[in-house]
């Protein structure tokens, strides 16, 4: 391959190397995460001080507040969670872990990132157009979104639709690469059951995305046509139906939750065995429950619509499927917990975040049952209870897993170790402040506080919650500040970190065979695979790990002889 050869600036920017593309996704996603976090802080400050100005922004109310809510959700789902979990980790890990030199379609991969980059520019541009960014909610329900007269916004919503559509196209191209690479480019000897779980989960997520995204793109195109060409897909006066969009949106929107959850679980699945020096417990059960989760995720979408006016007879089946999805997810979590059993657990920063992911995600998981019950949802729907629930369901796989993954694979990405003390500080800050921010929202939601309202003081009849609003607001500020140690650690360790070596964690998977950081082409010689990914503490061996590429003694002898 080309490593060692001089590389021009432009071919480094428009790189087809999966690792460079992964870093591009990583940096774009992290930058957007700060944008999303600042938007959250603006909302929280407004909610804690109803009627008072937010420093520098005036009173964030009406359209302004709605636009803040909309862009926070949009940015966090489409421009943070997806580029980080799929774009960064999927790109970086899949070729390395299956033992190949690059993605199956490197050029498509590059186009995928630059399409995503373009979508980012379009989204940023929507902040600058007259009328500001879209104020119609990240779900963009028509007729509010389809008729500019209702939202008083023309260009913001236009650009929002365009940006989201481009973003979906980008990840569609990425997903094709992930699936093809994992299936076709595995190193010699690597069976599907030798694949690390994160590769399974990335592929499952990509397949779910592939099958669910079509209806949303169609829905978005119809929305754009309703806005620009005078069609009436969602306009009842012209024979259309606003509920159509909700079905198309959630047919994508709910599987999307699992598109984010699965790679997050995958990161945890890689870290637990390494830091407890034990094989992953129940590899097959995890794979099967991943597949079951993926299938079930396609038939739960109407649980977002229990009070939307759908036929009441639909509630029971969708309630059933929604609540049943707890079973495969529980299988995976229980297998993770059983992996710890009789292990030798070392609480390094990646492990802290992996365990934190499980502990915090449990809250999101169990509260989902309340939303899944159609009758209970009548009360809870569109209250702060739901806000608390989905943050507890998404922050663990998106941020805890992201951080776990950064601390774990940083040595591979940049060749140096990150600082443990700063890492621990980052973990405890994040853990405490996430709970401080979102636990009060369960309480407010149970009192009946609705979402997306900028002045909570008008619900005084439901109980005075201004203390809780303040706790949540301080929690958000603390959460943002807790990311400072990460930034210091991340950029500081590039120069000052201890040199990592190829395999600092004594891990089995193939990415640790490649040099740190891996050169273009990854491996000097394509490895052969002799065993599954989780052979830790196997009886009869001196070392407590046994990499996938190390030939058994008889084979090694045969090779030397040959």
């Amino acid at each position: 391959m080309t490593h060692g050869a001089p590389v021009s600036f432009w071919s480094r920017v428009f790189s087809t190397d999966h690792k460079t593309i992964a870093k591009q996704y990583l940096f774009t996603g992290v930058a957007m995460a700060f944008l999303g976090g600042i938007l959250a802080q603006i909302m929280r400050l407004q909610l804690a001080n109803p009627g008072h100005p937010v420093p520098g922004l005036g009173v964030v109310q009406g359209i302004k507040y709605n636009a803040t809510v909309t862009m926070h959700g949009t940015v966090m789902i489409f421009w943070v969670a997806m580029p980080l979990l799929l774009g960064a980790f999927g790109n970086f890990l899949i070729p390395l872990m299956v033992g190949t030199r690059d993605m199956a379609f490197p050029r498509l991969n590059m186009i995928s990132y630059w399409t995503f980059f373009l979508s980012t520019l379009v989204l940023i541009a929507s902040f600058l157009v007259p009328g500001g960014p879209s104020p119609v909610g990240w779900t963009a329900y028509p007729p509010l979104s389809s008729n500019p007269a209702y939202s008083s916004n023309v260009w913001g919503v236009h650009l929002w639709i365009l940006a989201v559509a481009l973003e979906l196209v980008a990840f569609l191209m990425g997903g094709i690469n992930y699936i093809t690479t994992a299936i076709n480019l595995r190193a010699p000897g690597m069976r599907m059951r030798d694949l690390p779980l994160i590769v399974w989960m990335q592929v499952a997520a990509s397949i779910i995305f592939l099958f669910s995204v079509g209806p949303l793109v169609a829905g978005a195109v119809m929305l754009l046509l309703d806005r620009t060409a005078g069609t009436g897909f969602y306009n009842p006066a012209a024979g259309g139906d606003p509920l159509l969009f909700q079905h198309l949106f959630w047919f994508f929107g709910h599987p999307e939750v699992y598109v984010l959850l699965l790679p997050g679980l995958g990161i945890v699945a890689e870290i637990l065995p390494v830091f407890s020096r034990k094989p992953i417990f129940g590899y097959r059960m995890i794979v099967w429950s991943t597949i079951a989760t993926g299938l079930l995720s396609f038939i739960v979408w109407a649980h977002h619509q229990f009070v939307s006016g759908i036929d009441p007879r639909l509630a029971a089946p969708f309630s059933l499927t929604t609540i049943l999805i707890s079973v495969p997810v529980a299988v995976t979590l229980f297998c993770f917990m059983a992996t710890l059993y009789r292990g030798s657990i070392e609480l390094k920063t990646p492990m802290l975040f992996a365990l934190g992911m499980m502990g915090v995600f449990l809250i999101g998981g169990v509260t989902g049952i309340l939303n899944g019950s159609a009758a209970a949802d009548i009360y809870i729907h569109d209250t702060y209870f739901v806000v608390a629930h989905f943050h507890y369901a998404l922050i663990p796989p998106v941020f805890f897993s992201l951080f776990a993954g950064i601390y774990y694979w940083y040595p591979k990405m940049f060749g140096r170790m990150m600082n443990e003390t700063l890492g621990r500080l980052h973990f405890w800050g994040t853990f405490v402040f996430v709970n401080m921010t979102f636990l009060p929202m369960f309480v407010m939601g149970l009192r009946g506080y609705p979402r997306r309202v900028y002045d909570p003081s008008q619900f005084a009849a439901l109980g005075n919650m201004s203390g809780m609003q303040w706790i949540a607001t301080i929690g958000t500020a603390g959460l943002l500040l807790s990311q400072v140690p990460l930034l210091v650690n991340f950029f500081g360790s590039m120069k000052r970190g201890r040199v990592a070596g190829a395999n600092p964690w004594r891990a089995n998977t193939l990415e640790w065979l490649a040099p740190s950081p891996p050169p273009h082409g990854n491996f000097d010689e394509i490895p052969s695979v002799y065993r599954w990914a989780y052979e830790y503490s196997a009886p009869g061996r001196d070392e407590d790990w046994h990499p996938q590429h190390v030939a058994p003694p008889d084979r090694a002898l045969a090779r030397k002889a040959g």
Partner: protein
Amino acid sequence: MDHWLPQAASTYAPDIDGLIWMITAIVGVWFLVAEAVLLFFVVKYRKRSGRTAAYVTGDRRKQIAWILVPCAAILACDLIIDGASAHVWDKMKQTEPKPELTVRIQGQQWAWIFSHPGPDGQLDTSDDVVAMNEVHVPVNAVVRFELRSNDTLHSLWIPELRLKQDAVPGRTIYGWFEATKPGSYGVLCAELCGAAHGLMRGTLTVDGPGAYRSWLAASAPPAAEPAAVAPSEAGAEAPSTPAPAGAVAR
């Protein structure tokens, strides 16, 4: 319990509350047990010198049972929750008791418009009482509502009644409630509906039977005739309420 949820002021509110607490209790137990096991393992199996990890892959039948038996228990809990939930849903949504009166509720940017039948008991007659952001109903009476929207989505949200229902332009959505406690309650909007979504709010007043009749009489439109002449006008072509654009019965 009273501290956590607003007071329960409809016949089905206690059912929903019971369901919420039942689910909370079930998942709460699972949550605590799972967190305890997780924490116990992390403490108990911390790295110590002289001890190595065990080689346990979870492929043996007995090991698989560690996972699948608790998951079967989860499945059983799920089905119990589903059953209880379907029961409450059925009571609220699929069995409608005979209504004593029907009110029409229209959401629009950014107000609720309530049409009460006048003394004739019929909507769309000249004695209808139409009020902006104000609705009165008698206590302990089954009230049927016809919910419409004149523009975007809205969602009728009366926390004390445990009632939430989206209003969808182009549809009339029917529902019911029976308020059990006199008093006034906020009528909020729970679906993002534009700039002043957060200010869209009305008041539901649950009156004693006498108070309801006198409110109705006091609020009667000037031209209203005594009840005797009204029934013939039931279903009249020209409704006195602002007709929602494009609204049709489903």
